């Protein structure tokens, strides 16, 4: 399992227009939904914000992983945003969030959700990778950074 396997270039947003948490989640979700028409929009949005109500997905060190389990989703779908300005995400360490991974999971595949969240949170909490990502200027560059990092097998 790897990020590069699930993250497509079209679902990477560098410098999104949104400057607050809810708007950024919506913007990224819309981008993902554009490329996954099988996913029910209303269900996805509701599930994402319900999850945020439970506890912020801002896990610290400028990283957030909003996610939702969705009935109409058949496989893991990912979108990524690089917001250099930083967004208040009510993160656990109160630091502004600059790297956002938004993920849809199939409702019934709990193990897949566990594996994916563990992988993404582990990778994104590595300082070196985050520094490289923050310098990226394009979706292609972001994808290359993930690919190179994962090819080096940092685990």
């Amino acid at each position: 399992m790897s990020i590069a396997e699930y993250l497509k270039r079209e679902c990477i947003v560098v410098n999104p227009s949104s400057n607050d948490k809810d708007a950024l989640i919506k913007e990224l979700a819309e981008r993902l939904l554009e490329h996954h028409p099988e996913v029910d929009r209303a269900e996805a949005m509701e599930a994402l914000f319900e999850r945020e109500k439970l506890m912020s997905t801002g896990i610290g060190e400028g990283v957030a992983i909003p996610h939702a389990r969705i009935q109409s989703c058949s496989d893991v779908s990912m979108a990524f945003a690089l917001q250099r300005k930083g967004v208040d995400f009510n993160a656990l360490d109160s630091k502004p969030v600059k790297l956002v991974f938004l993920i849809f999971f199939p409702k019934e595949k709990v193990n897949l959700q566990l594996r994916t969240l563990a992988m993404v949170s582990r990778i994104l909490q590595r300082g070196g990778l985050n520094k490289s990502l923050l310098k990226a200027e394009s979706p292609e560059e972001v994808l290359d950074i993930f690919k190179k990092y994962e090819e080096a097998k940092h685990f």
Partner: protein
Amino acid sequence: MKLAVIFLNRIEVLEDLLSAFLEIGISGATVLDSVGMGHIISENIPIFAGLRNTFAGSSPHNKIILIITEEDLVEHILEVIEEVCNQEEDQTKSFMITLPIDKIFKNS
């Protein structure tokens, strides 16, 4: 000799289970308090908080019972678990594994 390891999710039947073991000739066992991984990650690691509902039906705490037994008692132990834990109705499904014992070292 075998080591039977029972993962008991319905802790309310523990006493009934131990009594039933006595009846089939098991006179000693060690009972450990344990917590499932699902409960720990969903309660303690924030990114997995969304899974709390998934694990809501399961007991936060369970027991592990260790029994050193003669091999011919293993089937009886299994029958007792099936009966006392009422496995058909038990959504959490207690289960048992057995391991061979090579040697036992004991203080005399």
